[in-house]
């Protein structure tokens, strides 16, 4: 090959490498960007007076006096809207206006939309479910709901050859020429005074229990459950995995059985995670009966099977990478084989082993399929340490799926869903980052 062809090839190769790095970064930004931007809104957002009332009621947070003063303030403003509607209703009932028959339905629809925004009036009986007790607690949601107060969503089916299209009809049009007409510009001008938005940092989202199935509150039970699962998995996986790696690297004599073992471990790494889930249900719960029903213990054992290949491989590679001279020096000084492994080889292999462990922690935290049948539930209490042995838990990956597909009000709790995804991604990123730092620090220490 001529020198300049080689140069061109070389350059194009560098160029392609550079391109793929750029592509990778871009796709990361595209995937993670929205998660971070929307996820952070579960923590940092503009709340409304309804939020502060909810926090006081459900979590005992905030100054009761202050909240009461704020409530008095907003209801003084809201009073005008409700009074106007009530006066108009009376007029309608007494048939003092033209076409009074057509108004009750419109008033009902208006009242419903107001209830969604402001919550029930103080003189109404308290609804039984917390979700109906408060108006919009977030300013971004309040603005959306306010749009539905100002405009009525209707569908236009006038074209028979196609599906209908959405039209927004200003609600004010249905009340033209009546006293109610004035409340619409009034609300538009005073929306902030009606809701009192305020910037808030809701860090307790990470630790709070959910109220009324994630309508309010945080994801404390899920975060705790995920930690339990990860820690439980590591308790089983680290000893088994490292001991297996030591055996394979130091003791096993190459033969049919050992090569079969290796094949088995590699195959295990390629088994789809749902298979582990079903196996866990059939083996740990139905056959071994480690617990009566789903439990953190059964889930941890199942996840252990899932991460074992990763840990064994990482540990074996790390042990094999320790220079032979270390081992020979130790043995020549009269140390036993076990002593050599524990005191010389394992410490030298520690960075590699730890990396494998931390990466598999990330895997265990994020897997959904293995815990569907063995550990995860959609509603439950945060568990005490010993309850993990026989009780199921909520966990981030499963509850994200559950909230997005099975929740009865998916659209109203988008911020919770994104907050959960954000937390999970952050957890995995932090774990992987920790792996890198740990590895660097230990290898630096070992080098002296």
């Amino acid at each position, binding site marked *: 090959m001529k020198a300049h062809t080689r140069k061109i090839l070389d350059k194009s190769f560098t160029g392609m490498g550079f391109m793929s790095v750029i592509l990778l970064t871009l796709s990361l930004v595209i995937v993670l960007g929205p998660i971070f931007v929307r996820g952070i809104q579960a923590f940092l957002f503009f709340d409304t007076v309804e939020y502060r009332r909810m926090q006081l009621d459900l979590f005992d947070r905030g100054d009761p006096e202050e909240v009461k003063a704020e409530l008095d303030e907003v209801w003084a403003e809201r009073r005008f809207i409700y009074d106007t509607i009530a006066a108009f209703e009376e007029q309608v009932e007494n048939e003092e206006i033209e076409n009074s028959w057509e108004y009750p339905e419109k008033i009902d629809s208006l009242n419903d939309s107001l209830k969604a925004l402001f919550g029930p009036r103080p003189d109404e009986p308290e609804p039984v479910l917390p979700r109906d007790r408060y108006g919009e607690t977030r300013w971004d949601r309040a603005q959306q709901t306010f749009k539905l107060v100002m405009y009525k969503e209707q*569908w236009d089916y006038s074209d028979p*050859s196609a*599906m*209908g299209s959405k039209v927004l009809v200003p609600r004010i049009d249905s009340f033209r020429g009546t006293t109610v007409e004035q409340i619409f510009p009034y609300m538009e001008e005073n929306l902030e005074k009606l809701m009192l938005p305020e910037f808030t940092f809701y860090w307790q989202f990470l630790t709070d229990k959910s*109220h009324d199935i994630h309508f309010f509150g945080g994801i404390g039970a899920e975060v705790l459950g995920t930690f339990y699962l990860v820690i439980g998995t590591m308790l089983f996986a680290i000893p088994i995995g490292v001991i297996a790696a030591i055996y394979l690297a130091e003791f096993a004599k190459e033969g049919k059985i050992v090569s079969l073992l290796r094949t088995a471990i590699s195959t295990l790494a390629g088994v789809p995670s749902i298979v582990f889930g079903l196996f866990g249900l059939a083996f740990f719960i139905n056959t071994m009966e480690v617990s009566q029903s*789903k439990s953190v213990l059964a889930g941890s054992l199942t996840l252990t099977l899932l991460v074992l290949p990763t840990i064994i491989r990482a540990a074996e590679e790390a042990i094999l990478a320790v220079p032979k001279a270390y081992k020979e020096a130790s043995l020549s000084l009269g140390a036993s084989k076990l002593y050599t492994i524990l005191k010389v080889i394992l410490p030298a292999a520690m960075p590699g082993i730890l990396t494998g462990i931390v990466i598999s922690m990330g895997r265990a935290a994020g897997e959904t399929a293995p815990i569907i049948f063995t550990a995860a539930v959609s509603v439950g209490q945060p568990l005490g340490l010993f309850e993990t042995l026989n009780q199921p838990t909520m966990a981030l990956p499963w509850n994200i799926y559950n909230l997005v597909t*099975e929740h*009865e009000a998916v659209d109203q709790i988008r911020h919770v869903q994104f907050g959960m995804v954000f937390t999970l991604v952050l957890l995995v990123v932090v774990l992987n980052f920790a792996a890198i730092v740990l590895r660097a620090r230990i290898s630096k220490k070992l080098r002296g």
Partner: protein
Amino acid sequence: MRFFLTCVLTALTLMSMSVVMAADKIVLDGSTTVGPIAKAFAEAYMKENPDVNISVSESGSGNGAKSLINGACHIADMSRFMKDKEFAAAVEKGIMPVAHCVALDGIAMIVHPSNPVKAITMAQIKDIYTGKITNWKDLGGPDVKIVMISRDTNSGTYETFEGLVMKKEKIVEGCEYVGSNGAVRGRVQSTPAGIGYVGIGFLDKSVKALTVGGVYPTKKSISSGKYPIARPLFMFTNGYPKMGTHLFTFVNYYLSPKGQEIVEAIGFVPITEY
């Protein structure tokens, strides 16, 4: 080594402690239709009794029955009655399923709100799902191919639908099966030509319920039997729970005014006028 020894020892102590610690717990599994009721009851009950841990999973009526038979749950949420086979399997294992009807439900036929079709008849639904009607044109809508969405065969909603509407005739191939009520609604929400069916607790503004045979699914039309695709929702226990236990109080929670109010607030039909 000390680290690993600590790990193993901790694991062993944890295991040995498991026998000693047994907090009050109630495990529910089953129907995704009964799910919202079960979840709301659980939250309300746990608020009144913080020492009880009630866990709810939603995996479908069939799985709920299986769990109860295997002794893996205390209460099986079911949106249909137990089948003969399931009863036989339960009795064989020494489990006596007892039904508690917690609410009434109608199965609403839902379409995308942009769909101009407002009414449908039982025969037409059957024709759609058997593949005889394939275009919205035949129902007075635009010339668009119908996209059928159904629950999976493990679902009680599916079995009710199969029994009441399909009359045991097979759903045609090409129908899309999804795993929960929420997922059916989600699919219809994103598919302008879609049709699906969900429990009325899952109706909201994002989808449009059709009248079936001229009757709209409301609390009144369902409890009076006028709406044709209606059914009771059950919680099954193993035998009748012992009086005074949390299981007894919880499974009878639907009888309390608060329980009935919750059922109604979620959108299902309470059994009494409370």
